[in-house]
């Protein structure tokens, strides 16, 4: 989908609830998310990469939808118009020694 980034959303103006934490794992507030959108972070992926929200232990399971909603509101779009974040393994945080310890059950391996 083509995204025109010349769009000027105007300056970021603080509003009620901006000091509220949205991403609990990485402690990112609503205000930080809104500000990032005004700075040109127009996609969920960019906001995540810029602020780390949704990149913590729960991988956005809790806040993903909330962040998407905040970005969409700021852009004046519907949340469904924003591409959700990608999904990658591991589905659950996994200790390094566990993931290193493979049993492939491969005969002759």
């Amino acid at each position, binding site marked *: 989908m083509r995204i025109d980034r010349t769009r000027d959303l105007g300056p970021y103006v603080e509003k009620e*609830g901006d000091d*509220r*934490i*949205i991403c*609990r794992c990485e402690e990112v507030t*609503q205000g930080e998310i809104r500000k990032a959108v005004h700075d040109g972070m127009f996609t969920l992926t960019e906001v995540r990469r810029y602020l780390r929200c949704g990149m913590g232990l729960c*991988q956005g*399971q*809790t*806040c993903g*939808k*909330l962040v998407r909603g905040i970005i969409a509101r700021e852009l004046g779009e519907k*949340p*469904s118009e924003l*591409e*959700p974040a*990608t*999904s*990658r*393994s*591991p*589905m*659950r945080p*996994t200790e390094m*020694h*566990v*993931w290193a*310890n*493979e*049993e*492939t*059950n*491969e005969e002759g391996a």
Partner: protein
Amino acid sequence: MKRYDLIIIGAGPSGLSAAIEAAKRKMNVVVFDENARPGGQLFKQIHKFFGSKEHKAKIRGFVIGEQLLKEATDLGVDVELDSTVMGIYPNREIVVRQGDHVNHFKGDSIIVATGAAENMVTFDGWTLPGVIGAGAAQTMMNLHGIKPGNKILMLGSGNVGLVVSYQLLQAGCEVVALVDAAPRVGGYGVHASKVARTGVPFYLSHTIVKADGTDHVTGVTIAEVDSKFQFIPGTEKHFDVDTICLAVGLSPMSQLLKMAGCEMDNSGPAEVPVIDESGATSVPGIYAVGDVAGIEEASSAMIEGRMAGIKVAEYLGFEEAEKGDKEFDKNVAALDGLRQGMFAPRNRGKKIEKTEEGIDISENLLLHGFVADDEIERFPGVTHRAGVHPVMECTQNIPCNPCEDACPKHVIEVGSNITNLPHIVEGNECIDCGMCVASCSGQAIFLINEDTGDGKAEVTMPYEFLPLPTEGQTGKALSREGKPVCDATVVRVRSSKAYDHTNLVTISVPKDMVMKARFFKAV
């Protein structure tokens, strides 16, 4: 690498049902689940299910879970617990964490049945300990035997919010209020009514302003919202609570499907895989069933699972297409049966004014969680006659008919249209056996004797709380709203295996209170 004909991810209602159908067709099936216990959400469901016999109606959720698990393992399905699927990789390979190592497995087909996760809403203080998901509260109570709190406010009047509120009451918690920003109750009216009659106030068009507390929740403030969900100043109400439960919807846990490269649809509130009727995704051999494919009830998840199980067997040549399709079509019909009535998926978001019978629906039920005294008489289940007879306070068209099957004297009829409101069959005599009361999953049937002499009447109600009242005990009769209306004396308490843990408590009340008294509170 170990290979299977079918790998199923998630041992909930849909995953186990799919496993059963595939294993019946001689497929080599494994089911992985990250939890220590199988059954997914089913094992948390201690209430009786709606539907008809084929949907396992009036059976409690955890019992359905046990039945499914037994059927699957009897058929040779390998159910591996404490097994977290970390990812789906190309060529239908999965990596599973089991204990302190990871295993690689490949399947000729994969069914993803990973269910859903709870949504959250934010308000000041939402990150305080004590703000929990309703599902989490249910897990604590029903799986681990832990009371989530003592004084609780529930946000969300959908079926999850209603059912969990009731279970919190059963666990001995005080539910101070049931709150929803929506203007009308979202879940089944009968679920709302059984909460309301215990005295829990409903606050529709209200939501949480803030949670109080420094290191844990000590209180909550709610306020009324206008049609644009903006707070109306001056309408704030404060409650002292230690726990706030959020039941604000579920989102499919579809990450594995996305990782597998399945085409996704994110036009709705949550991201779901694009699937056909059998659950097949855009990636050949990968299927999605149950909540991960779109949020519905466990009853529909079980049927979806069966449908996918049959189709996977056909896809891999373990079942002849013609034979399989016949079975498949039966399940399609059963699923259609469940997707009828006022709460059918196609009616989501619509305001329904009249029942299928053309009766004005109860507005009070939608606004306050209980049917008002001046509304109840217009429903077909509510009649007046001599002697003991059932009064069925069933006012919404939902696909459910255990009451009809339960009555040995065929006094109650729903009819071939499963969403019909139940009515009395004239000429057949009620024998006060109580089976209808115990079998109604909505706890909406009462046995009434309008005149027992001495100006008294008797009301028999379903009762699923402890301690159980004793005969001769006195207390107050509560109205449908949960307000004390008169003195009441317990005259009979019945428990029986056939009632399946629903006890029948009969109270004696003044005659003029017989259509008002619907709950008993010992004093």
